[in-house]
């Protein structure tokens, strides 16, 4: 079967080397769609017939080599048979490439993910561009599957399993040099040499890479079992089997079939065909698309960003400043006196040490982060972020000072979480200029920022704020200015319910277990301790007065007793070296009821936010809660989860909880607005 070649561009040079350039039509990035794989199959027929001296695969896109398989096609798969057909198609082409008699080279520049890496592994040699844009990985695990086009077989055949399995289990992308150091890449070359290097490899092929001795030993039968068992334990700490089966499936097939290439290839296909039918995969793909949706909410072009000025060098302000500097922008950081910047500078150094590998990159980040107690930066900044303590008068005083000094067109943003922007905007010459850019703690870990708009905020300011978030690599979520905005508003009833349960005598361990079993990354009690009970208390009070609810008195008692959680070593839990001491024998109570009470509060508040149009639609709400709180991603978000469970069943059950535990569980009117 021969198909028309429309996305691949073959060209044979003077030495007889065939250069195959992939440049997918009507797309900014290359993905391995069915069509592209079929074209490749046809090309392999031609190669077998024409017998070029060597084949080099490369990309015609500036963005990178190949971004992976076409995720949209996954969603069209309805049964195991279809999945197997799709997988075998890819496996077959790559195996044919592997068995070509002429040398094959993958020339990798920019992104090389999933199927792209698997194609590269099917080649005899891999050359990667020495540049920070080069990212090589097998991130399938993030979508709830594992490599299926021979990626497991081929990576574990040449790379020490500690490294290859780690790469697949974490889904982490490697730089060119990291990829070389683990043996995934043969050569790392600068742009000016890379084509020559690929050509030389193709024409004068050296010995192919083989598994190093240490890797051979770790892959021996008994040792393999031990290693897989150990890795499962590590994985279980972050991804429990019942919610995330893929890592366990990956370790199982490697452990059981390593060394039998054909069989392992079969099992690779079977395993993914099984996984792909589960809800986890669909929901993780949904999360992937939600992320794309948030990124598409604006354009970086709306703001030319060079310099950011941050006022307030507390944990939030300091971390925001460090993050912006890390992302390549000049930042001036202001507080009242030099000594108040010490902690922020220390944390910034820690962040740079963690995230940046070379000395010159760390130096450059430090050069960009400028302590500025005199506030000189106000006049130069494209975005000014106020992140001082939550005091209306103090914030207004800051704006009064800086507004006349700011550049025309610069964004004035506040990181407030509890003071209405309408109040803060009073006294501003241009109130339409003020916007909320609400970061979450810890700034470096949380991908979301809420863009808080008032009715007065100008369209331009909103677009600029969204662009700012995109510039610094965060996901922007525009929300209406209402107490708690979206994330805190929905999270707080869930935390408050946890405290209520505690007040009723349920053990913190039981409460946290119920939430973890649901799929939350951390239990609500431990989360409250981590955020700080003083902060929780003030946010809860603030929301309670706004929405006429009540705050359990035990929260205030903890604050008065200076038991503020992790930071003071005592909260709901006691802390030893920053870790909670949990009672393993705690009474777990009625887990189902505990879990429902926690989750129903969160779901009901989500419906209320839809009613009040805090965000534009339910997908954005789900995105906000997943990226802002870590809400069980494999459940696809609170409203998606409700729809999957069935709205009727959920609201009925809520009604029952309402009559038993109080009207806070009665379904709000917003549920009527939620549709598939």
């Amino acid at each position: 079967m021969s198909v028309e070649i429309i996305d691949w561009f073959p060209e044979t040079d003077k030495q007889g080397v065939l250069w195959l350039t992939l440049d997918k039509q009507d797309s900014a990035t290359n993905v391995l769609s069915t069509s592209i794989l079929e074209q490749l199959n046809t090309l392999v027929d031609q190669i077998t017939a024409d017998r070029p001296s060597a084949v080099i695969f490369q990309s015609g896109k500036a963005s990178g080599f190949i971004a992976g398989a076409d995720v949209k096609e996954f969603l069209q798969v309805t049964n195991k048979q279809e999945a197997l057909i799709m997988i075998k198609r890819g496996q077959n082409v790559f195996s044919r490439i592997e068995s070509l008699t002429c040398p094959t080279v993958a020339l990798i520049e920019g992104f090389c993910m999933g199927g792209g890496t698997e194609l590269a592994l099917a080649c005899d040699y891999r050359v990667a561009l020495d540049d920070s844009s080069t990212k090589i990985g097998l991130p399938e695990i993030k979508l709830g599957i594992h490599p299926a086009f021979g990626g497991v077989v081929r990576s574990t055949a040449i790379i020490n399993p500690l490294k290859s399995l780690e790469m697949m289990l974490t889904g982490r992308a490697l730089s060119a040099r990291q990829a070389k150091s683990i043996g995934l890449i043969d050569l790392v070359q600068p742009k000016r040499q890379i084509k020559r290097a690929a050509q030389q490899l193709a024409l004068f092929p050296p010995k192919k890479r083989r598994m190093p001795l240490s890797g051979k030993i770790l892959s021996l039968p008994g040792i393999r079992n031990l290693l897989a068992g150990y890795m499962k334990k590590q994985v279980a700490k972050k991804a429990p089997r019942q919610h995330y089966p893929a890592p366990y499936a990956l370790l199982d097939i490697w452990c059981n079939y390593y060394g039998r290439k054909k069989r392992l290839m079969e099992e690779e296909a079977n395993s993914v065909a099984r996984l792909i039918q589960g809800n986890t995969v669909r929901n993780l793909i949904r999360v992937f698309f939600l992320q794309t949706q948030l990124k598409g909410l604006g354009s970086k072009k709306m703001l030319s960003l060079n310099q950011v000025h941050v006022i307030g060098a507390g944990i939030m302000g300091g971390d925001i400043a460090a993050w912006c500097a890390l992302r390549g922008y000049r930042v001036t950081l202001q507080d009242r006196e030099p000594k108040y910047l010490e902690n922020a500078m220390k944390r910034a150094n820690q962040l740079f040490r963690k995230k940046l590998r070379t000395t010159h990159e760390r130096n450059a980040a430090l050069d960009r982060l400028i302590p500025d107690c005199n506030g000189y930066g106000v006049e130069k900044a494209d975005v000014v972020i106020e992140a001082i303590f939550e005091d209306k008068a103090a914030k207004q005083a800051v704006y009064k000072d800086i507004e006349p000094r700011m550049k025309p067109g610069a964004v004035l943003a506040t990181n407030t979480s509890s003071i209405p922007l309408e109040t803060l905007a009073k006294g501003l010459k241009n109130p339409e200029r003020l916007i909320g850019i609400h970061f979450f703690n810890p700034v470096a870990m949380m991908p979301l920022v809420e863009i808080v708009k008032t009715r007065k905020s100008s369209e331009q300011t909103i677009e600029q704020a969204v662009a700012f978030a995109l510039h610094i690599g965060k996901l922007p979520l525009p929300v209406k200015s209402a107490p708690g905005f979206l994330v805190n508003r929905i999270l707080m009833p869930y935390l408050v319910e946890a405290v209520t349960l505690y007040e009723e005598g349920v053990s913190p361990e039981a409460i946290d277990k119920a939430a973890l079993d649901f799929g939350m990354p951390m239990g609500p009690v431990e989360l409250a301790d981590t955020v700080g009970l003083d902060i929780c208390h003030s946010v809860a009070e603030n929301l309670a007065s706004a929405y006429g609810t009540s705050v359990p008195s035990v929260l205030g008692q903890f604050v008065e007793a200076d038991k503020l959680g992790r930071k003071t070593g005592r909260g709901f839990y006691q802390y030893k070296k920053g870790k909670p001491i949990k009672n393993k024998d705690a009474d777990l109570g009625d887990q189902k009821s505990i879990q429902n009470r926690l989750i129903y509060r969160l779901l009901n508040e989500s419906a209320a936010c839809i009613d009040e149009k805090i965000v534009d639609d339910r997908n954005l709400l789900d995105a906000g809660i997943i990226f802002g709180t870590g809400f069980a991603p494999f459940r696809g978000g609170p409203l998606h989860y409700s729809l999957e469970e069935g709205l009727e069943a959920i609201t009925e059950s809520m009604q029952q909880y309402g009559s038993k535990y109080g009207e806070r569980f009665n379904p709000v009117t917003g549920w009527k607005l939620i549709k598939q």
Partner: protein
Amino acid sequence: MAATKGIYARPVYLIDGSRTPFLKARGKPGPFKHAELGIYAARPLIQRMPFSAKDFDEVIMGSTMPGPDEANIARVVALRLGCGDDIPAYTVHRNCASGMQALDSAAMSIASGRSELILAGGIEAMSQAPLLLHPKMVSWLASWWGAKSFVGKLKALSAFRPGLLAPVIALLKGLTDPVVGMNMGQTAEQIAYRFDISREMMDQFALDSHLRLHAAQQSDDLREVEAIYDTDGKVYDHDDGVRADSTLEKLAKLRPAFDKPYGLVTPGNSAQITDGAAALVVASEGAVKKYKLPVMARIVSTEWAALSPSEMGLGPAHAIAPLLKSQGLKPESIDFWEINEAFAAQVLAVIAALKNKDYCKDYLGLRSAVGEIPLDRLNIHGGGVSLGHPVGASGARIVLHLARVLEANNAKRGIASLCIGGGQGGAMLIERETSTTSIASPKKATPKKRSPKKVSPKK
């Protein structure tokens, strides 16, 4: 602007400046490298300018021993400040006056019309000075690397002596004159002897330096100092060599460091080994107008002079005399003075030389003595003895601070001067427009007046 004519064909203006705290070296590499000091000094300065780092035409820095990975430190600093790839930068070296040389080079460039806006200053991280391999060790290494055969290696090995491992301390080499073989402290002893400067005078001068710096730190007189942070987040916000509790008794107990054991020059009355950097914006009339820059002062003229390396400490006298003469000025017309305190003895000897008729006649080619530099108008907020002398930076620091002192006192003229290792002197006259014509009296009361004994030169 003021009418005094200097050597510059076009007017040259000092706009603003800032510096790092001067941090005393504590026997090991300090928390900041050369480049970081330079960057941290200049960053806040650029932030408060109405233009961006990319608008400079050149960057010129004085530095005597930047790290091995920081050759042409000015270029490293310029790039890391974000001046852009297309802004040229060079480093100047005139020993102790490198920072002043950078300002003079900037002024010359502006005066000639080549540049309009320049970032100039000085940088020195003396604590980072390297230990070097002895040349004999380098030769041995060459023979070791060169030996290809086993026998050859064995031969090379047999020539090894543990003594070859002794390092050469680059800092000490730098502070020793290679021509006359005297270290800088010995040249200070030499001129103290010549002008009969006593240990008591030196110690009194040193004590005053500390007390003046301490008083300035308690007030608002050192606003050009910007807080800097190390990689642990620790803040450094003041010159930490100051000893507020210094007394004459304590100073008297210190032993001579250079002419042991009978000398007079001690660590207590010498400049400290220190890390620091200063940066200034130098602009043409055109740049002042273009960016509406506030003028701090005008650089009127700069004089360089040379003398025997063994009496390098008298360099300022040799530069100040012709500077005053060329401008038709007397010491009385100078409102404030900054003479870098390499050694208390050396500053006192300069004062003595300038008012000594014989010295002025025999060595400066004048008919009479130059006159008196009053101690209450000299280094009114301390100097090298109390805040240290990071060699390449001091020249820029004293000009910057002098301009600030003139401004704070609404005064008109000031001279900044340094002695230079190797036997040179440099002096720079700056002038600002005043709102009144009379010479102002110092704004703040200075500590106890210094009253040096009258001295006469010895031959």
